[in-house]
């Protein structure tokens, strides 16, 4: 996965060397036909022309990308100006995903650190507790969040009962609800890789820092954080990327005014808009952004590794 080495990175023996073609065949077949080829066809679709009734016409055009970036007026004859609607949706999605990432990091790092410094058998139980919600259906978790946050829901009932508030808070259908939904959906993704990194951390380094009169917080900032950085980066990516293209949280918690990339794309295929080339172009732009993030992170990590080897 992103940020860390995927299992299978290293070679162990070559017992099955002569059979490897046949062993690879099923995965190559399924993944090129069902994943790679569709992505290529999607790229082609983004350069096709929209047909009047929602289909596509097989003629090359840049219309979809043009519609995304430029506004040419209702009849397409005005001078092109930048179209902010879609760029705005992407911008808001990046902002929402970044906030979800930062909040998850603020809660997730101390949690991961606390768990990783317990005795080994206690650690396993904590990890198990964090893992369970990760495997509960995302739809059910989002619905549960919506139930909790409703105007007449348990959260408001509790806050009214304790007297913290006098009127129920309106949370559902706001950006805050979407934010809570994203944070809630992907929080375990932040804890687990950081936990794995801290488990490997040699705590004698902290002791050495303490011997040299570093405060706890200096040790955390100057010693621990740099040492576990790959885990932190992996956690951030695992929260940021799914948040960016998330569909359920904005759709169920955000209502009509809190559109994110996922809803925009869905609307082109399943909803009112019905513009497949535009939906394909919007997906391509999302995919490019994600790949860009992954490439930048991978390059920075190789650079850091090289620097470490040199010093």
């Amino acid at each position, binding site marked *: 996965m992103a940020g860390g080495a995927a299992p*299978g990175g290293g070679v162990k023996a070559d017992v099955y060397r002569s059979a490897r073609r046949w062993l690879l065949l099923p995965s*190559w077949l399924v993944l090129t036909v069902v994943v790679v080829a569709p992505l290529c066809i999607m790229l082609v679709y983004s350069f096709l022309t929209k047909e009047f009734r929602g289909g596509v016409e097989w003629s090359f055009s840049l219309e979809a990308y043009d519609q995304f970036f430029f506004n040419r007026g209702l009849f397409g004859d005005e001078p092109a100006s930048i179209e902010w609607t879609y760029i705005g949706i992407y911008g808001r999605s990046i902002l929402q995903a970044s906030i979800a990432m930062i909040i998850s990091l603020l*809660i997730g790092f*101390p949690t991961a650190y606390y768990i990783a410094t317990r005795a080994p058998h206690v650690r396993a139980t904590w990890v198990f507790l964090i893992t369970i919600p990760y*495997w*509960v259906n995302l739809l059910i978790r989002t619905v549960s969040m919506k139930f*909790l946050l409703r105007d007449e829901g348990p959260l408001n009932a509790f806050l009214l009962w304790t007297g913290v508030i006098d009127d129920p808070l309106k949370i559902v259908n706001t950006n805050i609800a979407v934010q809570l939904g994203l944070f809630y959906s992907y929080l375990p993704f932040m804890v687990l890789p950081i936990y794995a990194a801290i488990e490997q951390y040699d*705590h004698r380094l902290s002791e050495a820092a303490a011997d040299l009169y570093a405060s706890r917080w200096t040790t955390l900032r100057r010693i621990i954080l740099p040492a576990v950085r790959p885990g932190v980066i992996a956690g951030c990516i695992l929260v940021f990327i799914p948040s960016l293209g998330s569909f359920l949280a904005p759709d169920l918690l955000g209502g009509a005014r809190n559109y994110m990339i996922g809803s925009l794309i869905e609307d082109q295929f399943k909803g009112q808009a019905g513009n497949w080339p535009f939906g394909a172009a919007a997906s391509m732009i999302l995919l490019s952004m994600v790949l860009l993030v992954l490439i930048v992170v991978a390059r920075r990590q190789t650079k850091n590794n090289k620097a470490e080897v040199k010093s």
Partner: protein
Amino acid sequence: MRGSKTDVRRYPGFLPITIICLVVLYAPLIIVAIYSFNSSVSITRWDGFSLHWYGEVFTGPNSDKLKAAAWNSVSIALIAATTATVISFSAAMAVIRSGEYRTRRLSLGLVTLPLMVPEIVTAVATLIFFNSIGFTRGYMTILIAHIAFCIPFAYMPIAARMQGVDESYEMAAMDLYASRFQAFRRILLPLMLPGVVSGFLLAFIISMDDFLITQFVKGAGIETLPTAIFGAVKQGIKPDIMAISTMLLALSMVIVSLSFIAAKFDNTK
């Protein structure tokens, strides 16, 4: 180390944050589970304990639709997880136990590709693909899509386990004149069992849980549990939905526990 007066490993305030983290993760699920036992028709007022809404799921007006959706979900998850496990096992043997060759890194990248692509993009691409080759959307399209995106989830635990199994056992068997197939069947396969079980279970859960890809590639008139629940929730959260959710929650917990036990099994060896 840990006995020293001031334990440098401890950070004050990290325990409360950990507790907050657990409360945040569990509170919504527990509250929905509690309210699924509410006898009231209103989802807001608590009228006392009852199993009424569970009965509603099995015998109510929507029960036939839900049963069909549940059957689709379970049968698709079983077939997809089994197929993905076999494909991943075979891929792991080629990536980990077949030496170094030109397309090895590429093959590893290909197997983990579905994890890098945002789910909505995979969903859109698969929809366009089936549409452009004129494949009618229905049970088969859901199944094919599920097999593909379950592969990385089955692959991860299988490959991790395979790296932990020392190749010298197979080598020793082959030195004793076992054929390569015998070495595979009698040595590698039994040692791989925990990895295979957790790979299968994770793939099964991933398939059962998937909403987005299914929503895009399913045809009209076919539903899986998540798409059926989504459709119902769009009209407002009803108590019977909370009952189904609670049952699915329990199922996930059982499966994760089984997967956890499979991993433990591994340590006792």
